[in-house]
Structure formats: structure tokens, C-alpha cells
């Protein structure tokens, strides 16, 4: 009696027959029919037409039948939402059943029915089940919250299920805790910003307790959650590590790897001098090695992670080289990973063993593996200097085998060895040249040509060799063509007399007969160099090349640190951080939460590409590419400096205007340089921009946008660049600004993030604007009001600073400040000192009051900002769109007002008003 009989009914009237059986009176027949339906469902047959008939079977006390019907419901409810409602009553009833198994089953199944209408009915039973006396029901209900959140997140939040779920972290049953953590983690993943898993020492303690008692899967959830916690000091880190370490001996490899993640992360916080640090390092090795004796799929994931771990902390596995030796019957994906790790662990101590192994691998059957093994020998030579000689002789042995792909791969790596150890192994060139004819892969051909060109003076027949490649020039790949061009030019520079014809030939091939712009451009550069100044050409083309280092294949340290936090995840398998969140690496380009014009990520990523291409494998390029770059840059920046000076001087009347500063360097914006400053004149703020095109193409279609900022600054008009900006042209634009944009508190307060678009790309930069552009013209407060307000301002809203070296008297100060819209309300003389009472008002209606005490040559200033309670009083003056916005802005700036940054900024305004240029502002 097997289930295979259910598969035999594939005739036409099958559905009809099943329908009849489902409606049979006999229980047994019904059950058999449902089984047949399920069997059809499992193989992907559509049996949704039987929905009402199957649902009719739900009312039963036979648990197996009930489960089967539930299975069916979960699969098809989505396509038959109206019918699914029929099942609701039974679910609700089952949630009250005395048997916890049935209660749990009901709540679990309801969560799987992804129909909006059903979720409404689910809330009450779910609430009850979350507080059920039986932990089995509670843990099932915890998962159900995650399911429901996936269907209708708003509902879950409104019903307060998230809080109940958080409470379950303190449940007495470890399994319930584990499931609550799992559910919260899943919900948190779809809301990265939410602070669902609020970890603090108390909750961490609860998790650690549950860790010891829950199932293996629960342990994984808890460990992954722990890894997100940042201990407050090294002692806490150590105590967590101590409690996590026993997990390293778990039979489940996922538990082990999650524990490794927690330990690797928290180890960062421990001092290296600590005894415990050493103990921990020792404890990490055995479990990692053990992972390698598991099934090949587990090995693969483990190896990808070990690859990260050995880069971060090579000391952990430095004695375990042998376990990474490749076994004959390992799957290829395991072999390749092991090889990679072997190279990373290679050191002077074990290089002999490693080389012997690699040589063994180079005679294996699998071509990919053999290639990588040969390449690995080259990498060893570069990494371990003492072994270079042995590596080279091993490679020569391999070349003797004459196996085509081995020879080609060997030549590629020997080229790298030449780069690392110049003038050391050139004796092998003769052997290499013997194999010239057998090379058919572009990379190997290019490598060989490079070698011939580089050492042309030592190879007697270099011209013949290179000429032989030239015959089929147009059939070669770009890589080979470029290499050949450079190679022949090198040859010419070394042996000019006999190769004149050859170089003419290659230059004309590259510039006249090729459609490849790279090749053509390089050809022209060489041509011009050679024809104008052969000495310079020699300097450029035969320049000393930077040494190659073994670090080239290492993961960049910041990325590595990030990846270490993702040990055990998919990110660790691909060695790429998870997709969420753009990589904010460059300091000048800081984007807030909003990506203004889209494409922010791309522009960041693309910067590096052209450079990588040049500096990487194709290393002949740097000297040539360096020429145009060094030509263009200094002149351009010199010019803009000049402009800066003039514009700075020209607008000195009115309020203080800072000289234009470069906001966006041309390097970061594909040739567009933006510098600018802010001005305020008669009530209008403007941003004075200077756009310079330093690229070689015309720029058009300019547009500008601001991110939300503290004072709602926004462009009042579109960016008007009337004519296309041709190369090396500069335009000056004054962009009027308004303060009616959206408001968001920035850090620091006067930070402004700007996006500029042109026909090439979108660029981002951020700049700090001077606060005084926000001081409005009606900022003079009534004297009475001033007195009343001054007294009411609480002390904590007060800041003081001193201004040194100010040779002005009270009148001069007063008038200077007035030009920046800081008004003198009253003046008095106390004990020989002039006291000035100043007021200013910001565009968002906030008043700032100040008291200036002027001793001869030493004015000091007390600044007071009104307390938030005075807000209504300042409201009527606010030129803004809506009340909510205003309140936000006021709140934000009031809170921020007394932060040191704002005080500094205000002080700066004072200083600038006096035309004192602060070199460095004292704190």
C-alpha cells in the first residue's frame, strides 16, 4: 500500500472523479480522495477547482484529515479568497480547542493563508495564542506574527503585536524566546531603520540564558541576533564570548559558524595583551577545521567564510595548512576554494609543502583547477620572496610538460614575477620564447609580448618575434593589440636604428586601420610623443613601474571588516556586503536618507573603474596614461584659484561673503568642477556658483536639487546655464534660494547636501552654509520684549565665547554686525566696558539674543536662545508653508542651537562680520 497509486489517475475525468469521492459519505473514501488531491498538488498539477469540496472536509475530528485539508488551503487560498473565508469559522473554533496541538495548528495555518480578508479574523485568535498557557502555542504564535507582518505590516503594528513579540523575549521557555527572536529579526529585515531588537545588557543576558537551552535552530537565531549587539566595553565583550564559546562544539555547522561570527566580531574589542584573547584564538581553529570534514556543500560555505577569516586573522589557521590540501575526489568548487586559502596561508615556513602540492595539482585532469594551481604558484612567488626561485623553477618544469594550457598559464604568472623581482629571473626568457608558437590565448600572448618588449635589449631577435605577431594584428584581441603597440614602441626606444619601419607599421595599424578608440588614442599619444620629444617619450614609456604586490587580491580592509560581521550569511559566500544601503565610503559625498535624483550609487561605483583597468593586469598603461592627467590638472585649479580671489574681493560690501570654495572637485564629477559661496543681499539668499568644465566633452542639461535640510533651503529657480558648457569654459551663476523647502535636521545644523545633474551623470556633494545668510532683516527686537525675554531664557539655553584680537570699538562692532543683520537693541556702559545687546532672527522665526561685552581689544559674547516655551510668540513672523513644518523646524533648530557646532558657527559669523579670518576656531 503506497502513495504512488495517487499518481496513477491522470485520465481526463480525474477532477470529476475526485469531486465525487470528496463528497462521499464514507470517511475513509474522503480521506483517500484528499490524499489524491494533495498528491496531485505536490507535482504541480492544478487542483484548485476542488476548493469548495476540500474545504467541506475540514470539519472533522480526524487530525490527519484536518492537516491534509490545511495543507491544501495554504496552497490555494490565495487564488480563491472568497472561498477561503468559509474556512475562517473552523479556524477560530480550533483556536479555542483544549488540545494545544490543534490550537497551534490552527494559528499556524491561518498565518499561512495569505488572504487579506482572513488576516482581519486572525488578529483576535492570534492575540490569545500569544498569551496562551502552553509554550508550544506561544512559540507557534510568535512565528505567526512574522507571517502576518509579511502580509500586512500596518495591521501588525496597529494591533500592537510587535510589543507582545518583544515581551516574548523574556519568556520563561527558551524555545519561545528563540522563535520570538527569529520573528523579530525577520520583521526587522524588512524595516532596516526600525529599532525592533533593542538590545541592552538585560535582554542580552536573557538571550544568553536561552541560548544554552533551546534547539539548534533557535541557537542560530539567537547567535545571529547577538552578533548585532555592540558591547559597551571589553569586559562585557569577554563575558559574552565566554558564554558563546561552548557553541563551537555543536554538531550543527550553522550553529558553529554563527558562534564564530559573534566571536570574530567581539574579539575586535578585546585587548591583544589579554590572556583570554590568545585562548580564544586557539579555540577558533579546531571548529573551523572540523567544518571541512562535513558534506561538500557545507565545506564550500565554510571555505568561503574561512577565506575571510584568514585574511582578517591569519594567525588562527596558520598551522592548519594541511587540511586545505585538495583531495582527488573533492568537488571542483571545493578544490578552487581550498587552493585560494592555501595561497593566503602560504608563508616561508610551509612554502615547500605548498609548492609540492601545487605542482601535484598542476598535473590533474580538471583544466580550470590546473590553471588555478599554476597561477597559485606565481602568487606564492610574489608573496613569499624566499620561495621565488623555487617557484620559477617549478614553473619552468611545468612549461617543459608542453601541455598547452599549463604553458600559457605559466607565462602569464612569470610575467607578474618579473614585475615583482626585476632583473632577477630574466635568464628564463629563452625558454619562454621557445613556446611562442603554442600560445593561443590572448592573455598569454599579451604577457609574452610584454616580456619581449620589456626585455627587448636582451633578446636578440626581439624585432622578429614582435613582427611575427604583427602579421595578424587585426585578428588579435584588444588586449594583445594594445600590448603589441606598447611592446614595439619600447623596442623602438631601445633599439631605434633597426626598428624604425616596424614602429611606423604598428602606429599606422593602430591609428589608421583600427576602430577601437583605446587603441587609436594610445597610438596617437605614442606617435606625438615620439615625433615631438623622443627623450620625454623614453621617460614616459620606459618609466620605472611600481612593484606588484601580493596584496592585490586581498579584500579591501574596510570591506573585510564589514564582511566579517556577515560571516555565515549569503554575503559571506559572495564576498559582497548585502545590497541594502549604498556604500558611503568617500567623505565628501555624504548622502542622507534620500537619494535626490537616483543613480547615486552608480556614480560612486564608477569612479574607480577606469583607474582599476589601468592599474591592474594591464600594467603598461600607467606611464602613458599619467601624461594627460598631469597636464590638465594644475593649470585648471590655478585658474579657478584666481577667480576665487577676484570674486571674494568684489563683493565685500553688504554682509560678509566667504570666498568661493571648491565644493565638488573635477576628479569626483567626471570633469565638472563646482565652487561656490552663499550671499544674502536685501532679504534674498543666493548661492553663487561657478561651474567649470574640465572634461573633454560639452556639458549640457544642468539641474540642481537640495536634500532636505535644517532651514528648508531650496532653489527658488531652476539652474540656468544658458549655453552648453564647452571644455575648459567656466560660468558663474547666482542661484536664488528660498527657505520654504522641506525641513529635516542635519548634522551639523548648517549642512546642505546638493545634487547636480548634467548630461553625463548626477553628482553629489555637501557643503556648510554660513548661518548669517538666514538672519532676516527685521531681526531687531523691541527693547521691552528683549528685556522680558532675556530674563525668561533658562541658563541651559546659554552659551558664551570670547572673541580675541578685535581692534574695534562699540560703534564699529555695532555697524559691522548690522550689515549681517545682527541688530543692536540697546547699549550701555558698565564699569568702563561697553555692553551691547544684540538680537537676530532666523528665517524660521527663531530669535537669538546676545550680549556683547567689549573690553578694549577683548570683546566677549553671551548668546542666549529663547526656550521652546516661547515658541508661539515667534510663530507669527514665520514665512512658511504649514504649521507642522514650522514646528518641526523650530524644534530642530532649538534643540540644535546650543550644540557646540552651532555656537561655533555663530561665533564664526561674528568674527566674519568683523572681517577677522579665523585660521582655526578655538573651542
Amino acid at each position: 500500500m503506497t502513495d504512488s497509486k495517487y499518481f496513477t489517475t491522470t485520465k481526463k475525468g480525474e477532477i470529476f472523479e475526485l469531486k465525487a469521492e470528496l463528497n462521499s459519505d464514507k470517511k475513509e473514501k474522503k480521506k483517500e480522495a484528499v490524499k489524491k488531491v494533495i498528491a496531485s498538488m505536490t507535482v504541480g498539477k492544478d487542483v484548485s477547482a476542488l476548493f469548495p469540496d476540500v474545504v467541506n472536509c475540514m470539519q472533522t475530528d480526524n487530525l490527519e484529515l484536518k492537516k491534509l485539508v490545511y495543507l491544501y488551503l495554504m496552497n490555494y487560498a490565495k487564488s480563491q479568497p472568497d472561498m477561503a473565508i468559509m474556512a475562517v469559522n473552523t479556524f477560530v473554533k480550533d483556536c479555542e480547542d483544549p488540545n494545544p496541538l490543534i490550537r497551534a495548528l490552527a494559528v499556524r495555518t491561518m498565518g499561512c493563508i495569505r488572504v487579506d480578508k482572513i488576516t482581519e479574523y486572525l488578529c483576535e485568535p492570534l492575540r490569545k495564542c500569544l498569551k496562551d498557557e502552553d509554550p508550544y502555542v506561544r512559540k507557534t504564535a510568535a512565528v505567526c506574527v512574522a507571517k502576518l507582518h509579511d502580509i500586512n505590516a500596518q495591521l501588525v503594528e496597529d494591533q500592537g503585536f510587535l510589543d507582545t513579540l518583544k515581551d516574548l523575549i523574556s519568556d520563561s521557555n527558551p524555545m519561545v524566546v528563540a522563535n520570538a527572536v527569529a520573528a523579530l529579526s525577520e520583521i526587522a529585515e524588512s524595516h532596516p531603520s526600525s529599532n525592533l531588537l533593542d538590545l541592552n545588557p538585560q535582554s542580552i543576558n536573557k538571550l544568553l540564558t536561552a541560548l544554552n537551552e533551546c534547539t539548534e535552530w533557535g541557537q542560530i537565531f539567537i547567535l545571529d541576533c547577538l552578533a548585532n549587539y555592540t558591547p559597551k566595553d571589553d569586559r562585557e565583550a569577554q563575558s559574552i564570548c565566554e558564554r558563546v564559546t561552548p557553541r563551537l562544539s555543536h554538531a550543527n555547522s550553522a550553529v558553529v559558524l554563527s558562534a564564530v561570527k559573534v566571536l570574530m566580531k567581539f574579539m575586535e574589542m578585546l585587548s591583544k595583551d589579554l590572556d583570554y584573547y590568545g585562548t580564544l584564538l586557539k579555540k577558533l581553529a579546531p571548529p573551523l577545521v572540523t567544518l571541512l570534514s562535513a558534506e561538500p556543500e557545507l565545506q564550500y560555505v565554510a571555505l568561503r567564510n574561512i577565506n575571510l577569516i584568514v585574511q582578517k586573522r591569519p594567525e588562527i589557521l596558520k598551522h592548519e595548512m594541511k587540511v586545505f590540501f585538495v583531495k582527488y575526489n573533492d568537488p571542483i568548487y571545493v578544490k578552487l576554494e581550498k587552493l585560494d586559502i592555501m595561497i593566503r596561508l602560504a608563508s616561508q615556513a610551509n612554502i615547500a609543502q605548498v609548492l609540492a602540492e601545487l605542482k601535484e595539482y598542476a598535473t590533474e585532469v580538471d583544466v580550470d583547477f590546473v590553471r588555478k594551481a599554476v597561477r597559485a604558484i606565481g602568487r606564492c612567488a610574489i608573496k613569499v620572496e624566499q620561495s621565488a626561485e623555487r617557484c620559477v623553477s617549478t614553473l619552468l618544469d611545468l612549461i617543459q610538460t608542453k601541455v598547452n594550457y599549463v604553458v600559457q598559464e605559466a607565462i602569464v604568472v612569470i610575467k607578474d614575477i618579473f614585475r615583482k623581482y626585476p632583473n632577477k629571473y630574466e635568464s628564463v626568457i629563452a625558454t619562454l620564447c621557445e613556446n611562442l608558437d603554442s600560445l593561443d590565448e590572448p592573455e598569454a600572448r599579451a604577457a609574452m609580448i610584454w616580456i619581449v618588449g620589456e626585455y627587448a635589449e636582451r633578446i636578440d631577435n626581439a624585432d622578429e618575434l614582435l613582427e611575427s605577431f604583427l602579421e595578424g594584428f587585426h585578428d588579435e584581441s584588444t588586449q594583445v593589440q594594445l600590448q603589441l603597440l606598447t611592446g614595439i614602441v619600447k623596442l623602438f626606444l631601445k633599439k631605434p636604428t633597426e626598428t624604425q619601419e616596424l614602429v611606423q607599421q604598428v602606429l599606422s595599424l593602430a591609428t589608421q586601420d583600427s576602430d577601437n578608440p583605446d587603441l587609436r588614442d594610445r597610438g596617437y599619444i605614442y606617435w606625438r610623443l615620439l615625433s615631438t620629444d623622443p627623450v620625454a617619450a623614453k621617460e614616459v614609456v620606459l618609466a620605472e613601474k611600481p612593484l606588484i604586490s601580493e596584496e592585490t587580491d586581498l579584500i579591501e580592509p574596510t570591506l573585510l571588516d564589514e564582511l566579517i560581521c556577515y560571516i555565515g550569511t549569503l554575503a559571506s559566500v559572495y564576498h559582497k556586503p548585502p545590497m541594502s544601503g549604498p556604500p558611503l565610503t568617500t567623505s565628501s559625498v555624504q548622502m542622507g536618507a534620500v537619494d535626490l535624483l537616483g543613480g547615486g550609487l552608480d556614480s560612486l561605483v564608477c569612479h574607480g573603474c577606469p583607474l582599476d583597468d589601468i592599474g591592474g593586469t594591464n600594467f603598461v598603461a600607467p606611464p602613458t596614461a599619467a601624461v594627460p592627467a598631469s597636464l590638465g590638472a594644475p593649470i585648471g585649479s590655478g585658474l579657478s584659484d584666481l577667480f576665487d580671489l577676484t570674486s571674494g574681493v568684489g563683493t565685500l560690501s553688504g554682509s560678509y561673503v566667504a570666498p568661493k570654495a571648491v565644493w565638488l572637485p573635477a576628479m569626483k564629477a567626471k570633469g565638472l568642477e563646482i565652487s561656490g559661496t552663499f550671499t544674502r543681499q536685501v532679504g534674498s539668499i543666493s548661492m553663487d556658483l561657478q561651474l567649470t568644465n574640465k572634461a573633454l566633452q560639452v556639458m549640457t542639461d544642468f539641474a540642481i536639487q537640495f536634500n532636505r535640510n535644517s532651514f528648508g533651503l531650496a532653489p527658488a529657480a531652476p539652474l540656468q546655464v544658458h549655453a552648453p558648457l564647452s571644455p575648459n569654459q567656466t560660468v558663474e551663476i547666482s542661484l536664488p534660494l528660498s527657505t520654504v523647502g522641506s525641513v529635516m535636521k542635519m548634522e551639523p545644523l548648517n549642512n546642505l547636501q546638493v545634487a547636480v545633474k548634467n548630461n553625463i551623470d548626477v553628482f553629489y556633494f555637501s557643503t556648510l552654509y554660513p548661518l548669517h545668510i538666514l538672519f532676516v532683516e527685521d531681526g531687531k527686537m523691541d527693547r521691552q520684549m528683549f528685556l522680558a525675554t532675556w530674563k525668561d531664557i533658562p541658563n541651559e539655553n546659554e552659551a558664551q565665547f570670547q572673541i580675541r584680537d578685535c581692534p574695534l570699538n562699540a560703534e564699529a562692532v555695532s555697524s559691522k554686525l548690522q550689515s549681517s543683520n545682527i541688530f543692536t537693541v540697546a547699549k550701555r556702559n558698565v564699569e568702563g566696558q561697553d555692553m551691547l545687546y544684540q538680537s537676530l532672527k532666523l528665517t524660521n522665526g527663531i530669535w537669538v539674543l546676545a550680549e556683547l561685552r567689549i573690553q578694549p581689544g577683548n570683546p566677549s559674547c553671551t548668546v542666549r536662545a529663547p526656550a521652546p516655551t516661547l515658541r508661539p510668540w515667534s510663530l507669527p513672523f514665520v514665512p512658511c508653508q504649514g504649521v507642522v513644518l514650522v514646528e518641526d523646524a523650530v524644534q530642530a533648530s532649538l534643540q540644535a542651537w546650543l550644540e557646540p557646532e552651532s555656537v561655533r558657527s555663530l561665533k564664526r559669523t561674528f568674527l566674519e562680520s568683523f572681517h577677522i579670518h579665523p585660521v582655526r576656531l578655538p573651542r
Partner: protein
Amino acid sequence: MIHSLFLINCSGDIFLEKHWKSVVSQSVCDYFFEAQEKAADVENVPPVISTPHHYLISIYRDKLFFVSVIQTEVPPLFVIEFLHRVADTFQDYFGECSEAAIKDNVVIVYELLEEMLDNGFPLATESNILKELIKPPTILRSVVNSITGSSNVGDTLPTGQLSNIPWRRAGVKYTNNEAYFDVVEEIDAIIDKSGSTVFAEIQGVIDACIKLSGMPDLSLSFMNPRLLDDVSFHPCIRFKRWESERVLSFIPPDGNFRLISYRVSSQNLVAIPVYVKHSISFKENSSCGRFDITIGPKQNMGKTIEGITVTVHMPKVVLNMNLTTTQGSYTFDPVTKVLTWDVGKITPQKLPSLKGLVNLQSGAPKPEENPSLNIQFKIQQLAISGLKVNRLDMYGEKYKPFKGVKYVTKAGKFQVRT
């Protein structure tokens, strides 16, 4: 978490699918088939594949692919461990994990999968809990069920589900109380051409078969526990006790389970019980070669080495082999180029050997690669690491159990380079 599961046989048919969240179309498996095609060999399909909207994480077990579909970030090891657990469960329930067995029991399979995972979170994966929920099929039960109309689904909450010892059910009763332990050690080794050891380590496990009534609390101690420095434990073992006293103290699950697995690392000297003398050579410019291997005992601690088989993947240009053997029998498959020599036992008086001629494809160049010899063997009553159980004590129950320990050493990945 785990979204869906597809079971695929070697000919590329998806014969079962299960979805724990919304339904994912079968077409997602096309990416898997693509990778499979690229890998050529079934064993070389990469376990993690990314597709535009999902990740596919798969394992290959018993000629079946278990392909799971993942949509959010999830530890891949978690998924792979779980998939192996699913395969183990099928093995446990149906005696074999094969397409036929799964199709024969498709409803139970479906019930099991539903029980093992909820919304992608593992629910019950312990075999003894599952067996309380869903009874394994037996001929007797299916006959009884069809007569009485009763079902094979348990309707009470499994007792182990929530206790602190989820691996054991309450109320276990046996008339004969027995506890057996198998210490099984496998030698993984790479031996180079000259016979010296490149790499060797021992992978050991202690498998237990415990049939004891009630709630027995066992302590297992070793003569030389210091050998065990890299151990993975079954969750039932009290870790603290091991750390402080080097004693395995535990309340065992009922039935068969793996108590510990351990590794005796390559730093320690590993005894290699056999040696192979070999001479495999191909003549330049002629279509034949010579093949000669002899196998003999080395450090076998005075025990008989038995069940020896030698497997050799010969180079592709080999057409056929004409060999004579002094012992056992050999086969050569001209399609896969695999030579298998079933040797049997070694008797030191007369060492088994296999020699003769190799016929090569005429005109083809001399093969570059040297074939590796894969050796299998078994030694009864010996744990090659020297590990020995000292005693087993039982607390918490009054009866006297019958106890036994068996040792066996086998070749794991034991490879001789030529």
C-alpha cells in the same frame, strides 16, 4: 528563511515541490538546470546559486537534488544543514532516500515537510519528535489503518517538544534494556608517490543505539580522553562536565543517534595501516602502458585488514586493461575509465597484486596526469587513534542495562598518488 523546496532527480525532473510561504514558480529551477549543465558532473554543481530574485541553495544526496529557494538573507549553512536533515528524515522513515520511496510516501513526505518547517523556520527536526507526530509507514500499520480507519498522525503534543530535553520522549519502556556504542574512525589521507604521508587525519564518530527505559542519565568515560581535543557534541551532552572532567554525561535520546564526532588532527601522528607499491607507466609513442600495484599491511596493530577495494580513475586515453590478479577480482569500465579491484582480506604471507598491460588509444599523446588510487578498507575491533572507552555508568534508573562497545576503523578519503 526557506521559501520553497524542489526535489529534482538526476534526469532533471522536478518530482516534488513544497512552498512554505507564497508559491514560487517551478521556472526558478531553470537557473539550477543551467548551472547543472555548466558543471557537467552532478557532484560539481555549486551549492549556492544567485538568480535575479532568489537564491537557490542545494544539496546532492543519494542521486537527488534538494533545491531550496531563498528570498531574504539567511545563513546558507542553516539551509544546507536543514536540507541534509530532511534527507536524513526520509532515510529514517522510508529506509532509503530515493525518488521511488518519496513518491511511494508522498503524503507522509508532505506532512513531514509541513511539520519540519513553519514559515521557513525549523519547527521539529528531531527524529523522535517527528515520529510521535507522524508515524513512519510499516506494512503492518498500513494494513491496520486500512481496516480500522485510524490514521498515522499522532494527535497529542509530543512530549519532547518543549521540555529541556527535547530529544527524548517520556514514558519509554523496554523489556531488555540495552546501550550500545560504535566507535567508528575513518582515516583521511593523501600518500605521495614515494609512500610518505602528505596529509592524514582521523575523523571519528561515536554512534549510539540506546534502548533504555525511563529517564536514564549516562556517563561515558575514556581511558585517554586527551586525544579528543576537537569534538562536536550531540545537544544532549553536558558541556560543562566535559570541560571540567572530560566525561561525557548525558540523558540520551531514544534509539539511534550520533553522540559525538571528533577529529584527531594532523599534528598527531596517524598510523597508516596499508601501503601500496605501484608502478604505472605509459610509453612514449606506443599504444600501451604497464600497470602494477601491490598492496600490503603497514601499521595495522596486529589486526586483519579486510574489505579492501582499490578504485582508479584511469586517464581518458586508456581503452582497455588486461590485468591478472593474485587475489580478488577486478573490473574496468571503458566508458567511465574506472578500474575497480575488489581485493578482500590481506594475508601477510602472500600480498595481493594486480598487474598487466594498459591499451591506449593509438596516436593519442602520452597521458600527462597520473591516476590516483583510492583505497577502501576496514579493520574490526580497532580504533586507530587509540581511543578506548573506559566505562559507562547509569544513574537515575534502577535496572541493570546491557552495555557494549564496538570499534571499527575504515578508510575515509584515502588516496595514494602515483
